[in-house]
């Protein structure tokens, strides 16, 4: 097995990878930016090196410095996590040139699947269904009009290098095609430094369903039960579950086999995810893209199959053959994940960086917290606002829902606002319980105006706040007079005095 793994990431995924390494008995090297000296991954890994200033470009994307740390520390493998350098073929090649294993697929797979156009061609050649559309990029406005008429309305204009909803434009009227072309192109250029865009059919009641695959270096590839990722806000996944309420065993098998075909097209040899768009009306599924990394939402697949994907990914990177075959993978129960962000759901989801001054994480049966948080952490303004992923398992979907509600209720993060109460509203809603939703679900059901909804305990809130003020006023008065607070054991003054002596 590897002697030492450098984890080229931060936040909860760095912790996730570190945990897998600890369980495999492999020492870990953390890297961090100047803004992340206090981050949890710096504290828990065996070694830690600063790789540059706060901006990602100068630290977490700084290949020279990261490879230098790998050399200094004698790390023989690098785990890139997700985001940052995880889908960067150049980085993978530079690792290889330095004799270091990049824990991910072969570079051809990264390159082909990293581009929407080439990935579609590769998948189509293997017979994987695509959304009706074009397999080349648009040259100009006239070309766009021509293809728009060929495919038919409604349409989606997309950036070839895109992701995360950027460079996407929906078109419902022919006369909007030229404007959408110009706008998408400009956004694609600004976001990805690549102005290539293309057109495809817009799917009605679209659902985002994806298949986890895992391949080894010996030609074996298996698929796992699907993940339902339709609950999105601003095209970002918010809640994921496995399995999907839409998918039955036959469809699961068909999607799994299609995913394996797509993976085989690039000799896939790591953990990866094939994303499909599924029509909620017709249940047709179409290849969207393939992510050549460990996905944020991999834990729900782990919970319904018992397979530790993060560990297996490391083992296949080392060259181990898969320890199981397709027949060994069974779907058991139901899992849900809520992504908890440092955002204020009652204030248009504004980011809320700041210090976490209190933390109590949920526990008990079948609750899994994947977090980079701790009490005292200063959440920096420079990176993604995801704080943790709360994952539950239940023997049925209904039980997973009640368990998630219970766990959300236990989760106390003090000092900054988070999306925890928003999740509780979504997971607790009747519409979610029905399981009949599409990617527009959040926008259609949870308007910001809901922030004005009636609250059940305003009397208690006023009493609690007023008593706190009363106690402070009394404390201040006694402090001035040289007296003592009435309940010394709960006073922070006393406490700091006790600890510091």
């Amino acid at each position, binding site marked *: 097995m590897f002697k030492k793994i450098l984890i080229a990431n931060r936040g909860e995924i760095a912790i996730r990878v570190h945990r897998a390494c600890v369980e495999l008995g492999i020492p870990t090297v953390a890297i961090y930016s100047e803004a992340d000296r206090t981050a949890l991954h710096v504290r828990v890994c065996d070694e830690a090196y600063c790789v540059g200033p706060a901006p990602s470009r100068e630290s977490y994307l700084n290949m020279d410095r990261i490879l230098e740390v790998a050399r200094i520390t004698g790390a023989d493998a690098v785990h890139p996590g997700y985001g940052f350098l995880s889908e960067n073929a150049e980085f993978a090649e530079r690792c290889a040139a330095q004799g270091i294993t990049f824990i991910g697929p072969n570079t051809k797979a990264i390159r082909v699947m990293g581009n929407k156009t080439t990935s579609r061609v590769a998948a189509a050649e293997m017979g994987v269904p695509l959304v009706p559309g074009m397999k080349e990029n648009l040259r100009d406005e006239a070309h766009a009009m021509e293809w728009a008429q060929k495919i038919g309305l409604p349409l989606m204009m997309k950036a070839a290098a895109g992701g995360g909803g950027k460079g996407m434009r929906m078109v419902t009227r022919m006369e909007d095609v030229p404007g959408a072309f110009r706008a998408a192109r400009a956004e694609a250029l600004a976001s990805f430094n690549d102005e290539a865009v293309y057109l495809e059919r817009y799917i009605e009641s679209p659902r985002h369903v994806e298949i986890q695959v895992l391949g080894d270096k010996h030609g074996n590839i298996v698929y796992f039960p699907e993940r339902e990722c339709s609950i999105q806000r601003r095209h970002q996944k918010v809640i994921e579950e496995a399995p999907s309420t839409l998918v039955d065993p036959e469809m699961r098998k068909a999607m799994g086999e299609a995913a394996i075909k797509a993976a085989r097209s690039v000799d896939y040899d790591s953990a990866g995810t094939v994303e499909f768009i599924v029509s909620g009306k017709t249940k047709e599924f179409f290849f969207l893209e393939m992510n050549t990394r460990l996905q944020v939402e991999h834990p729900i697949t782990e919970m319904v199959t018992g397979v530790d994907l993060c560990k297996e990914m490391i083992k296949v990177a080392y060259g181990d053959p898969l320890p199981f075959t397709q027949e060994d993978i069974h779907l058991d129960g139901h899992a849900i994940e809520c992504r908890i962000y*440092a955002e*204020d759901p*009652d*204030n*248009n989801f*504004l*980011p*809320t*960086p*700041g210090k976490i*001054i*209190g933390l*109590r994480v949920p526990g008990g049966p079948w609750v899994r917290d994947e977090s980079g948080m701790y009490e005292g952490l200063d959440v920096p*303004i*420079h*990176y*993604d*606002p995801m704080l943790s992923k709360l994952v539950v398992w239940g023997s049925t979907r209904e039980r997973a829902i009640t368990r998630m509600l219970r766990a*959300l*209720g236990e989760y*106390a993060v*003090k*000092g900054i*606002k988070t999306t*925890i*109460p928003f999740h*509780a509203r979504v997971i607790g809603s009747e519409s979610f319980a029905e399981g009949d939703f599409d990617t527009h679900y959040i926008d259609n059901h949870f308007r910001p105006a809901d922030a004005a909804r009636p*609250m*059940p*305990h*305003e*009397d*208690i*809130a*006023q*009493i*609690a*706040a*007023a*008593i*706190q*003020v*009363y106690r402070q*006023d*009394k404390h201040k008065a006694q402090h001035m007079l040289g007296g003592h607070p*009435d*309940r010394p054991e*709960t006073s*922070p003054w006393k406490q700091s005095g006790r600890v510091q002596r």
Partner: protein
Amino acid sequence: MTYIATYRGRPTRVQIQETEPGRFRVLLGETPYDVDFLEPQRNILSLLIDGQSFEVDVDPAPGADLYGVMIKGDHYEIEVVEERKKKLSMKLAAGAAGRQDLKSPMAGNVRAVLVQPGDEVKVGQVLMILEAMKMQNEIKSTIHGTVTSVSAREGQTVAMGDPLCVVEPLAEEG
């Protein structure tokens, strides 16, 4: 002691009396409550009221009389001011009614400042753009008025609560 607790613009009179250590007799408006009060973790309170158990988080906003209160996942913004002070501050506030004193709703970088003093702005017009955690966030005017001052500069890092700009309402709306 008597306080005014204000929630969603509605002020309520709160009288508090400590009957024994950790026990409070509270009159909220006209309604009496007997409260068994404990603060086992700083600003995480345990209240027992008539047998009902409430776990209450109280976050004091720095430099204000505002308290963010969390109960069973719901969030309440409560202003608590001593009754005498409240009367005073209400008089002061009356003089500046309608004036929009925009403060930064978060820590971040000022990406763009789109107005300057003297500009007339409409309701919903974007005044500036703040960036934090890779997200761009538009700061909009909630009134129709005139920009009288701009404190934020492009490229500047601001903390939550830092002043951004001031918009005075136009006469016909005052």
